[in-house]
């Protein structure tokens, strides 16, 4: 690394540093983020999974529009197996399954990403405030979190699906309800991280300077807790897809006319023996996407894990 002299008087410093640099004293100037990105790049499975996930997002979003059948369109081919005309086959009514799977994939992924985004923001804020302030604030917030955790979320959905069925069929509504349940895990995680970070001397240094709590939390603590937050957010995507699929299968999730992967699997249930393609294609998509998201999460955890940093 070049070490240009910053003024003439200090050329001696530069010379010494050059010698030191040769001796391997200077570490290359790289931020924590770059280091983490570097480690992630070395995690082949995670990298491949990321590529696959991005590919699926693109294909499902663009493909649903480009494919010459619409997911709601009814063709005159009923219950045909995979063919050149309908690569994934059709169902009893005559829906093209490829169009349905692509749209369903897009819906499932978007729902899950919205769940992850909302629950991460809410969970981080609540966990951060609880962990940073401790005491009464912590006690109140954490008892509230416990309460949400023990509330049977499925029951809520059940009621909503039956009572306000027009709402229940909307993916955004499902996403909101799931997010309202999912933030609790992250809140606990962030609280724990903050409890230990708060004891570090750099936080005390900020108090000594006179920094506001808001500044300490947003500028110093959250960036230091970003590892577990990102990993958890990723895993929430996978988790939300799984739960959404399960709910749709039970008939409580995304309702027709909207399609999701879970809904497709559910509607294939009765015909799986005679028309197996109706079950296999959505199921394979679901499993592959969830697997890839989990691998991405693993890769991120390895890349951001503080224990890895110690060895450096």
């Amino acid at each position: 690394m070049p070490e240009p002299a910053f003024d003439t008087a200090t050329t001696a410093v530069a010379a010494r540093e050059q010698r030191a640099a040769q001796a391997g004293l200077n570490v290359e100037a790289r931020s924590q983020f770059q280091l983490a990105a570097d480690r992630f790049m070395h995690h082949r499975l995670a990298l491949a999974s990321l590529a696959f996930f991005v590919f699926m997002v693109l294909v499902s979003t663009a493909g649903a529009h480009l494919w010459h059948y619409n997911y709601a369109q009814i063709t005159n081919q009923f219950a045909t197996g995979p063919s050149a005309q309908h690569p994934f086959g059709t169902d009893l009514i005559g829906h093209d399954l490829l169009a349905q799977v692509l749209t369903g994939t897009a819906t499932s992924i978007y729902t899950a990403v919205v769940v992850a985004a909302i629950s991460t923001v809410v969970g981080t804020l609540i966990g951060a405030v609880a962990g940073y302030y401790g005491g009464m604030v912590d006690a109140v917030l954490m008892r509230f979190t416990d309460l949400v955790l023990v509330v049977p979320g499925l029951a809520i959905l059940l009621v909503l699906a039956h009572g306000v069925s027009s709402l229940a069929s909307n993916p955004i509504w499902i996403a909101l309800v799931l997010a309202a349940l999912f933030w609790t895990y992250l809140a606990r995680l962030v609280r724990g991280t903050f409890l230990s970070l708060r004891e570090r001397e750099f936080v005390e240094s900020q108090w000594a300077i006179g920094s506001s709590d808001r500044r300490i939390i947003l500028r110093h603590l959250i960036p230091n807790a970003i590892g577990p937050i990102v990993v958890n957010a990723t895993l929430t995507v996978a988790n939300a897809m799984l739960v959404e699929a399960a709910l749709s299968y039970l008939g409580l999730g995304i309702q027709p006319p909207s399609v999701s992967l879970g809904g497709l699997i559910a509607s294939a249930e009765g015909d799986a023996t005679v028309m197996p393609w109706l079950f296999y294609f959505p199921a394979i998509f679901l499993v592959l996407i969830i697997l890839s998201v989990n691998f991405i999460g693993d890769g991120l955890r390895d890349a951001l894990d503080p224990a890895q940093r110690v060895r450096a």
Partner: protein
Amino acid sequence: MTGRLLEVSDLSVTFSTREGDVQAVRDLNLRLDEGETLGIVGESGSGKSTVALAILGLLPRNATTTGSALCRGMELIGMSEDDIAKVRGGTIAYIPQDPLSSLNPAFQVGWQVAEAIWTRQNVSKAAAWERAVQLLELVGIPRAAERAHGYPHEFSGGQRQRIVIAIAMANEPDIIVADEPTTALDVTIQAQVLDALRAARDESNASLILITHDLGVVAGLADRVMVMYAGRPVETGSADQVFYQSRMPYTVGLLGSLPRLDADGSGPLRPIPGSPPSLVVLPDGCSFSPRCPLATGDCLTQAPRLLPVQPDHMAACHRSGEVAGAGAGMFTATWADSTADVAADVLTPEPVPVAAGTAPGAEQVSDQPIIMVTELVKHYPIRGGRLVRHQIGEAHAVCGVSLELRPGETLGLVGESGCGKSTLARSILQLVKPTAGSVIFGGDELTGQSRHQLQPIRRGIQVVFQDPYASLDPRMPVGETVGEPLRVHGRWDRQTGPEKVTELFRLVGLNPEHRNRYPHEFSGGQRQRVGIARALALDPSVIVLDEPVSALDVSIQAGVVNLLEQLQDRLGLAYLFIAHDLAVVRHISDRVAVMYLGKVVETGTRSQVYDSPTHPYTQALLSAVPVPDPAVERRRERILLTGDVPSATSPPSGCRFRTRCWKADAICAEQEPELVDRGFGHPVACHFPSLTSVTAR
């Protein structure tokens, strides 16, 4: 001439890691004779512990060991796991550094000592237990027969380390390897443990390999000394030869950079510039050459071999002849970081703006204290209870401390861990809310103020913390960290902000070009400089330094101490300097206060406290500090305190020191001695003060 016990030749250890091969030990030769004590000294990362682990076959799997270690005809390197396990704890006993983790918390300590005996010797369990109790007694566990039934958590750190020593002695080893046995302990406890180690060595007639970074400990215990640097031995010889006739610049530098308890410490220290090389990419030639003032020509290209310079005295240096003549003078008394070639004034040409009212000249004359602490008390509640958590007790961390700090002076606050010195600092800074008492800073009362009210006052009183790794935000470039105070106080603008940061970097001897780097890219000493720069950003008049150099290696520590002194001269800062290292405090302080269990027991000028201490605790503390001088250590008589510091939740009645004091009388239990001048010219809190000089000269 006694027999050769251990002969290590050409030992090399390499760890393969993600970053490359770490050459932890290279071409090491050593010998150990019967009944001899060998001290291995070096700074962190010098490979001294790896040597011990290699001999004992305890290295992790990613290590490759080559060379040979012959012990009584047995080759230890490459020995099978089963065989070496028989050597460990039999012929060679190992005392690891951390007494907390080396005992099993689930078993009685007596059982753990006895187990070591019956697994190797053909004795009954009852006999093994009896022997265990004897050993515990020998290492100084009081009421050993009874306490052998106790579990590790019921013992203090010093006692646990003594129990580990007892286990090491269990099978009458030929060699005891002690790896930093006292590093985690306070000085008075360290003195006790070293005493136990001496007793163990003499009782079992074992040879001792003592691995430590503390030159004082080596001076007191070792017959021969090996100095290690970057994985290689750079000098070996008798203790006297190494300490008095050093032939390797590194040894000279180490000794010169150490503030000494037995010197008046007026001159600046002489740090070794730079920091140790990475063991992955070693420099060509001599590993020490990038830091060596004598390095020229072949030093940069050819690694020197360890060659005899005197009978039994070897040094690895091309210029060992010149070293003998040059002495400590070869290192300049610098304060900047790795900038030994640059004169101090070159780095900071511009005068430093100082906040109004704190101009050095103006205030230094006034005798008005800038900080007045009166009867400050801090009690921490202890919560517990089975069903409902409630307060079940109080830890009396600080109990009625009064202090004064005048502009431009340094008040040193010394005491062992748990004496409340850090809590006192945090209470003064209002980082914790004091229970009672008052802190007046420049005319403003700080206690009871809201955070908002304190905000403008904080500018004037800043803090530097102990741990250079924890005190900087790891996710923030250091330049931003230094600029944070300016932003928080609304003094940042795009023009002057970066300028001020550049100026601060130069002020603390750092290269401003490094402002965009992250803390993990800096060495400990450099990080501490960043912390100091941040504290200076708001032009404070007082800086509270909480153990600012205790986490640093000695060669680095000296540079930071010099920097602090230099900043004080230039900016007229007042320091409250908190440390457990009495030598450093002696070096830097104008006045000193000694704390014990939340109270100041003696205070006065530096020479009053160090040269004529009158409180028994001060005397014991001073007497416990090892001095890096073998001759002094040999003739010194120690005041050895018994027992440990009592718990702060239930401090003793009357005088708090009475439970460990050899002068304690009935009155000490009944009446608490006031901190007043008792005819010795400075205040002391003792009923029976007497003047004794304990610092051996």
